[in-house]
C-alpha cells in the first residue's frame, strides 16, 4: 500500500506542445483514485507514465517516497490491467495468471497456492485449463484482473478495463472491482471516460481535459461544486444546464432570455457583471404549482420526453440550446406541452465568463445528503 505522488508532471511528444501539463496530485495509500476525462484528454498517457511505459518529459514521479522517473516498469512494484486485457492467446488461463509469478521466480508451491486463491476469488476455478479464446468477454476481463491481483503488487493500474463489456456486466464488475480493492487494500489508479464509473467507484476522482487538471475531489463534492463549466457538464447525467446571462444592475437581475430572468438578492449584487455563465442541475428545475408566485414562474415548450420508469427527463430549448429537466416519477408529458417551471435561486451555479471559474456554488443541494443519524 504505497503512496503515488505526481509533482509537476508533463508529457510532450514533439518538445513543443504538451499533451499533459503540470500535473500535481498525491494518491494516498489504499485509495481508489479515478482519472476521468473525454477521449484524448491524456488520461491513458498519464497512467502509462506512472506504469513506466511512457517517458516522463518533465516533473517528478514518486512511488512510496522514492523517485521512480528512471526505473523500468518492473521495478515500480505495480500491476496493470489493459483495456483489451492483453491476455497471452497461446497460454491457458492458469499460465496467464502465473506468467508474472514465473518471471519473478516465485516458487512452484506458492504459485499454485496464489493461483487457486485468486481463481476462487474471481470464480475462474473451472476455467483454469482453457485458452483465452474459449472464454466470454466477462471471463477474459476476470483473467486480466486475476493476473494483476496475483502479483500482490501494492499498486494496481487499470486502463478502461470495463469498456469492452456490455452495460449489465459493466455494472456488476464495477462493484466487484471496488470490493476486491477494499478487501486487498491496494492503491488503485483507474482510468475511464465513463463518468458513472468515476462517480460510483472512486474515493477521489480527477477530471482531466486537454492534458490539464480540471478538478480533484470526492465524487459528490465535484457533483455539488463543479470547478468550471467543463466539469459541470462532464459529471452528471443528464449534464448541468448552462446558459450565458446578462447582468442588469438597475433591475438587479440576470437575464437568460426574454422569458427567463433571475432576480439577484441585494447581498449578491457583485454577480451582476456584463456576462455570467449560469448553470443549474436538471433535477433542480421544479414544477410550478398553483400556489407559487406568478413572478417566479416561467413557461417552456417541451421538445423531447424520456420516461425511464422511475424518472422522467424532458427537454426544452433555451437560447437555441437544449435544457434538460429530471423529475422523479412518471410524468404524463407530451412533446409540445407548455409547462410552468420554477428555479430556486439557491440551486444556481455561476461561473465567471472569462476565467470559467465558479463564483457561486449551489447552496441548496436539497435533502440528498443524509447523515447516519437519519437511520435509527
Amino acid at each position, binding site marked *: 500500500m504505497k503512496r503515488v505522488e505526481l509533482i509537476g508532471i508533463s508529457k510532450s511528444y514533439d518538445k513543443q506542445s504538451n499533451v499533459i501539463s503540470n500535473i500535481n496530485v498525491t494518491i494516498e495509500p489504499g485509495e481508489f483514485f479515478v482519472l476521468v476525462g473525454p477521449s484524448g484528454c491524456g488520461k491513458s498517457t498519464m497512467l502509462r507514465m506512472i506504469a513506466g511505459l511512457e517517458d516522463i518529459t518533465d516533473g517528478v514521479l514518486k512511488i512510496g517516497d522514492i523517485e521512480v522517473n528512471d526505473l523500468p516498469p*518492473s521495478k515500480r512494484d505495480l500491476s496493470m490491467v489493459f483495456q483489451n486485457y492483453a491476455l497471452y492467446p497461446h497460454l491457458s488461463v492458469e499460465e496467464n495468471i502465473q506468467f508474472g509469478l514465473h518471471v519473478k521466480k516465485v516458487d512452484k508451491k506458492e504459485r499454485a497456492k496464489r493461483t487457486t486463491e485468486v481463481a476462487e476469488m474471481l470464480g475462474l476455478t473451472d476455467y483454469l485449463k482453457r485458452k483465452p479464446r474459449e472464454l466470454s468477454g466477462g471471463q477474459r476481463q476476470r483473467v486480466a484482473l486475476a493476473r494483476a491481483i496475483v502479483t500482490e503488487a501494492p499498486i494496481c493500474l487499470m486502463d478502461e478495463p470495463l469498456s469492452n463489456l456490455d452495460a449489465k456486466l459493466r455494472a456488476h464488475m464495477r462493484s466487484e472491482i471496488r470490493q476486491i480493492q477494499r478487501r486487498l487494500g491496494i492503491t488503485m489508479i483507474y482510468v475511464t471516460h465513463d463518468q458513472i464509473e468515476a462517480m460510483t467507484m472512486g474515493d477521489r476522482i480527477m477530471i482531466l481535459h486537454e492534458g490539464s487538471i480540471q478538478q480533484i475531489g470526492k465524487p459528490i463534492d465535484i457533483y455539488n461544486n463543479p470547478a468550471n463549466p467543463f466539469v459541470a457538464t462532464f459529471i452528471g447525467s443528464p449534464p448541468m444546464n448552462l446558459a450565458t446571462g446578462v447582468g442588469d444592475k438597475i433591475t438587479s437581475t440576470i437575464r437568460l432570455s426574454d422569458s427567463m430572468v433571475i432576480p439577484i438578492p441585494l447581498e449578491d449584487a457583485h454577480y451582476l457583471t456584463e456576462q455570467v455563465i449560469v448553470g443549474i442541475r436538471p433535477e433542480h428545475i421544479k414544477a410550478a404549482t398553483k400556489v407559487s408566485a406568478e413572478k417566479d414562474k416561467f413557461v417552456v415548450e417541451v421538445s423531447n420526453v424520456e420516461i425511464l420508469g422511475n424518472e422522467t427527463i424532458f427537454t426544452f430549448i433555451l437560447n437555441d440550446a437544449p435544457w434538460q429537466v429530471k423529475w422523479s416519477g412518471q410524468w404524463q408529458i407530451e412533446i409540445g406541452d407548455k409547462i410552468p417551471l420554477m428555479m430556486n435561486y439557491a440551486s444556481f451555479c455561476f461561473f465567471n465568463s472569462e476565467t470559467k471559474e465558479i463564483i457561486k456554488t449551489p447552496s441548496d443541494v436539497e435533502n440528498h445528503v443524509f447523515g447516519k443519524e437519519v437511520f435509527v
Partner: protein
Amino acid sequence: MTAITKHRKISNWKRSSNARTALLYLLPSIILFTVFVFYPMFRTIYLSFFLTDQEGEAAIFVGLENYAYLLESDAFLNSIKATFLFVLYTVPTGIIIALILALLANEKLKGIGFFRTIYASTMGVSVAASSVVWLFLFHPSVGMFNKFLNIFNLPQIEWLLDPTWALFSVSLSTIWLNTGFSFLIILGGLQNIDEYLYESARIDGASYWYRLKRITIPMLSPTLFFIITISLINAFQTFGQIDILTKGGPSQSTNLIVYSIYREAFINYQFGTASAQAVFLFICILIVTILQFKLGEKKVHYQ
C-alpha cells in the same frame, strides 16, 4: 404427367443455378490449373511408365522399370543426397537469419524503414541476375571472396570448382536470395503481435529473451510454419542457381533433383526416366509436407 416432368426439369435447372454460378467463377482458375498443372502432372505420371523416342512420345511400355532403374542408379541416389543436404544447409539457416533480421528491424528506431527495405530487397532480384553476381564473387582469381581470404593469408578456395565446396557455395547464394522473402513474411508476423502483450510482460519484469521465448516465438508460430513449408518446397525445387553457377558439377556434387530432371529430359532426351524422377520428387515433397503438418500442428498456436 408431362407437366410434372417439365416442372421437375425446371426446378432442377433452377436448383443448380447456384452451382452453375459457382462454376462460372471457378472457370478461369480451372482452365489455368488444368493447362499448367493437372495436365502436365498426369502426363508426367503417364510418361514415367514408358520409354520415349526422340520426340518425347511414349514408345515402349515398361511399367515400373524406370523407377527400379532410378533407385539402382548411383547418379540419381547422389542427386537425392545432394538435394537433402542442400535443403538442410539452406532452410534452417535461411529462416534463422531472416528471423534475426526481422527481430532487429521490428525495433522502433529512427530510420528503421531504410533497413527494412534493404533486408527485404533480395526479393526484388531475379535468380538469374543474382546468380551472375555471385558467379563474380565466387571467381577463383578476381572474386571478392578469394581476395578477402588473401588479406588474411588464408588458402584460396575454388568455390564452385571444388566438389567439397560447390554445394556450400550454391547454398550460400540461395540463402542470400531467399532471405528477403522470409524476412518480409516474418516481419509481417511480428508486426501482427499485439504491443500490449509486451507491455504487460514488461510490467511483470520479463527479460528480452524471456519475452522472445514465451511470447514472440509462440505468437509467431503460424508465420514460421508457413515460411518453413514454403522454404522447404522451394529448396527441393531449386534450379536457376544450379544452372547458372555450376550446371550440376563439379562431378555431380550439385546435381539437385530438378536439375537432374532437366538434364535427363532435355539433354539426354530420356523423358521416361525424367518423368519418373519428377514423380519421385513429387512424392518426396508430399511426404515431407505431410510430416511437417503432422508434427508441426501441435506446436502452432493459431489465434
